[in-house]
């Protein structure tokens, strides 16, 4: 009977296990957060999930008899070693919990010796077989460190524990104690020997270079040579660098954040005397630090004002991670296995970067007391294990959430490692798969472009760079392609040009002698008899002789609404073609974005409004111009735009960044020319002197601003009125229905 029961229980258990195993399909169905990546324009775009919640560790289970399961309170730091142990800095309980990554207790370190541990770092020393656990303690716990109780509260210490991995925990049974008051023998719990010892500790450096500040270690990282990088709370000089030699030698400060000098600050400083430099800003202290196997130091800073909050520092303290995405409230940072970097913010977001600083993914979010897996109340630290699982520590919910990389992310990592090792051709395979999974993942497109570029397959490189909106790469591959084309066709090109030139010369000669083209000339003359055509064609003369031009507009009838409309449409066409269909390198608009109706309205409204305002101002300041003349003059003044902009447009198709300066020069020449023409138009049409013209232009701009402001106010008022009428209508309908 008992056996049968046991069997039934077993079967039931198995069913439950089977059910629970098949269950993950449901949890995959909907994640509580969206995953974003950065596209080639630097915008966040949604992508498929990069990491999915795997498990949540909220307590450490104990398999050692005599020790209960443990919970941590306000955990502040986590480190995971390659062999699968995690070190949890249990701040409230002042201890370090060592556990396996699946949450089983190994041992507890540092009880009695720690007061307020906030940072932990682990080094396995292969020479003596010990594992060293470095703990940054905000305060000092033991009297032997410093006899002054106040000092112990003021300054903290770095305590280094050591133990041998795998040494079993020993329970030392205690004899019962006889209590005389009650008269009973009371059983004593056994003393647990976790088999660790204090190796050494470091107090505030005595070097005068350290300065007068306190020493309150918050976080710690240690490189292979044993040099410690310690973040001391409130120390704005940078990270404290201490070498283990001679009981701790202060090496100096490292990797300080830069102070951003604002213009306002500079002006203030300029007027202030030297004594009052107290207003000088201070650099923010990093909030976390980490070191990778190569000895590169990673820091993250929480402050909003910091320009570069995520940093990868080399030995000399120079930042090698130039990223555009700088999270605020950053609290934790961890290097990954592929030179990638994970950063977390206390607001619940997790960022993953490539070694160059391109944002790969951003996910997670703030948990509004819903306790949903995948969201956080307050992240305090992050680390990553050997399988790329992310361990994210939440210091309010007192748990560690484990995230598992998806297949997509694994492919990203695979291509990352191949690409970084220079195996471009091999990296193409995972990249192709990635692009199949998400063709809008611009990182993959860019890497693909690089891979093809390295293979000297420039056509493919060009294609992928174009997809990735990577301008420099696109330009380089385009240069190569163009160079190839020139190499094979330059001779023909020159020959064709020479032939054309000769033909023109010969035809010109013949024309001079026999009047070959007189027919066309006569036709053109006839055409010019048409008032409208002659007015439109007049813009060529206007551009080179604006003073005569203005006279012609005023006195010789070179003005009509027909010509105005034609030139305006021409302007719109050139502008729209140039804005949306120009060469990739000179294009400022994003792909697939069109605001053509707005553009048309802007052009019409812009010209009419500018002319109207000028006209209004001119009439009250002795100007002679009429509205129609001013509008015509303005449009004629844009002749350089009609002539040069098409050339720029065509040039934009064939230039690379090397020749971009030609485009820029052309633009400068065009705009200066237009500005001169506009100025002379106002001056000549109204018969002003130079001084008067400047005055009128100033007043016109002011008037335009006033008009725009009034229009804006009227718009708001009108919107209010409409809203009011609408709500009254709604109210009436509601009451009537009732």
């Amino acid at each position: 009977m008992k056996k049968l029961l046991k069997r039934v229980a077993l079967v039931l258990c198995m069913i439950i296990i089977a059910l629970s195993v098949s269950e993950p399909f449901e949890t995959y169905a909907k994640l509580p957060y969206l995953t974003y990546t950065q596209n080639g324009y630097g915008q966040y775009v949604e992508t498929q999930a990069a990491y999915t919640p795997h498990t949540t560790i909220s307590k450490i289970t104990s398999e050692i008899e005599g020790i209960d399961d443990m919970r941590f309170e306000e955990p502040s730091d986590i480190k995971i070693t390659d062999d699968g142990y995690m070190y949890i800095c249990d701040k409230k309980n002042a201890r370090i919990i060592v556990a396996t990554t699946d949450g089983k207790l190994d041992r507890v370190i540092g009880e009695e010796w720690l007061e307020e541990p906030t940072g932990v770092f682990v080094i396995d020393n292969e020479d003596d077989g010990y594992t060293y656990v470095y703990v940054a303690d905000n305060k000092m716990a033991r009297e032997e460190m410093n006899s002054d109780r106040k000092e112990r509260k003021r300054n903290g210490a770095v305590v280094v524990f050591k133990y041998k991995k795998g040494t079993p925990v020993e329970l030392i049974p205690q004899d019962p104690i006889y209590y005389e008051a009650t008269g009973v023998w009371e059983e004593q719990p056994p003393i647990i020997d976790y088999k660790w010892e204090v190796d050494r500790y470091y107090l505030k450096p005595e070097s005068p270079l350290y300065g007068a500040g306190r020493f309150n270690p918050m976080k710690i990282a240690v490189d292979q040579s044993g040099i410690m990088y310690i973040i001391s709370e409130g120390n704005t000089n940078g990270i404290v660098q201490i070498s283990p030699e001679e009981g701790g030698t202060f090496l100096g400060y490292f990797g300080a954040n830069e102070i951003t000098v604002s213009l306002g600050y500079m002006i203030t400083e300029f007027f202030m005397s030297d004594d009052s430099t107290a207003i000088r800003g201070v650099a923010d202290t990093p909030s976390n630090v980490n070191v990778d196997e190569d000895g590169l130091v990673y820091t993250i800073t929480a402050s909003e004002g910091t320009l570069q909050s995520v940093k990868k520092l080399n030995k000399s303290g120079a930042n090698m991670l130039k990223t555009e995405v700088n999270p605020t409230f950053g609290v934790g940072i961890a290097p990954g296995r592929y030179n990638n970097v994970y950063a977390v913010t206390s607001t619940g977001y997790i960022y993953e970067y490539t070694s160059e600083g391109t944002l790969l993914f951003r996910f997670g979010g703030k948990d509004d007391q819903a306790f949903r897996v995948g969201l956080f109340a307050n992240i305090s630290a992050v680390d990553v294990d050997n399988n790329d699982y992310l361990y994210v520590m939440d210091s309010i919910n007192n748990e560690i959430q484990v995230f598992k990389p998806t297949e997509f992310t694994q492919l990203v990592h695979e291509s990352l490692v191949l690409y970084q090792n220079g195996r471009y051709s091999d990296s193409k395979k995972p990249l192709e798969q990635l692009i199949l999974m998400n063709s809008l993942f611009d990182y993959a497109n860019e890497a693909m472009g690089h891979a093809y570029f390295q293979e000297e397959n420039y056509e493919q490189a060009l294609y992928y760079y174009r997809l990735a909106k990577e301008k420099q790469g696109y330009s380089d591959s385009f240069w190569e392609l163009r160079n190839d084309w020139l190499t094979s066709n330059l001779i023909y090109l020159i020959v064709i040009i020479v032939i054309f030139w000769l033909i023109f010369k010969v035809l010109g000669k013949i024309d001079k002698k026999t009047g070959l083209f007189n027919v066309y000339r006569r036709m053109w003359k006839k055409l010019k008899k048409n008032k409208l055509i002659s007015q439109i064609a007049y813009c060529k003369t206007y551009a080179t002789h604006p003073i005569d031009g203005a006279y012609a507009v005023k006195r010789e009838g070179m003005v009509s609404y027909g010509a105005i409309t034609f030139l305006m449409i021409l302007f719109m066409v050139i502008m729209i073609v140039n804005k949306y269909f120009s060469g990739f390198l000179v294009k400022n608009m994003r792909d697939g974005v069109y605001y053509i109706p707005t553009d048309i309205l802007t052009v019409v409204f812009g010209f009419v409004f500018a002319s109207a305002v000028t006209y209004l101002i001119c009439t009250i300041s002795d100007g002679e111009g009429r509205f129609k003349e001013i509008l015509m003059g303005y449009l004629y003044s844009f002749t350089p735009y009609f002539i040069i902009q098409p050339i720029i447009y065509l040039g934009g198709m064939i230039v690379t960044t090397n020749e971009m300066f030609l485009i820029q020069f052309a633009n400068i020449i065009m705009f200066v020319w237009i500005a001169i023409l506009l100025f002379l138009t106002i001056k000549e049409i109204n018969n002003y002197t130079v001084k008067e013209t400047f005055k009128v232009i100033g007043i016109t701009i002011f008037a335009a601003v006033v008009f725009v402001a009034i229009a804006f106010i009227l718009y708001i008022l009108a919107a209010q009125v409409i809203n009011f009428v609408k709500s009254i209508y709604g109210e009436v309908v509601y009451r009537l229905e009732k």
Partner: protein
Amino acid sequence: MKTSKTTPYIFLLPYIVLFSVFIIVPIAIAIGLSFTDFNTIQSPNFVGFMNYINLFTQDSIFMQFVLPNTITFSLIVGPGGYCLSFLLAWSIAQFTKAPRTVLALIFYSPSLTMGTAMNILWRIIFSGDSYGYVNAVLLDMGLINEPILWLTSSSTLLIIMIIVGLWSSMGIGFLAILAGIMNADDELYEAGAIDGIKNRFQEMIYITIPTMKPQMLFAAVMAIVNAFNNGAIGVTLSGSNPTPGYAGQLIVNHIDDYGFIRFEMGYAAAVSVALLLIITVFSKVATKLFGEKE
């Protein structure tokens, strides 16, 4: 008195001889060499247009750095220096004789003392350590945190070359313009004043510039030629040819590089001919803009 047809040529002979020996013959030789492969030791062999084809198709440094650098430099220093020359010449022409002479000498001297000045002045001003003047000032103001390597960094060298080029652009053209302004007929200004010219600016636009068109043209051509031929700046400032990252490499440096470092005279000659053509084209443009239209 009867003169034979040869007499004028005899008078012209000294000029013709000198001009041929020092200008025409070298150009002819350069053009000849540009069709050969010549390493200064063996006799040149004829290669046809190969050098030119290589220049535009194979020499990626020429297309990627040298040509853009040269055009940027010349387009800014040429017209910029020209405008500066004109404005300075016009403003110092307003002084009396003594200060005018002194000022003219001061403005003219940079173009005479280029090499020395560059070494003792600009290299100290833009020195790459924290004791260079610019670095020291910027560091003091807190604009930068560490000294910038002005002269060896590829992003700043060209800008500094342009600054130095503008500073030293008050050369022969400047003197010509000054002379032109000084020689303008006073009666014209008087007439202008009677006709209603109100200020100095109008005087300049309506009288000075029209009367000195020939000098303006000469100065413009000189400005262009100088801008294109100004090769020493980048090399002297950075102290190396090629300049770091080819950032300040101009055509003249490229010619130097091929001619006197690699001893590929044929190719260097081809580049010089290309430079000659470019200068000719730009001079033509200047002539079109400033020349008499009759």
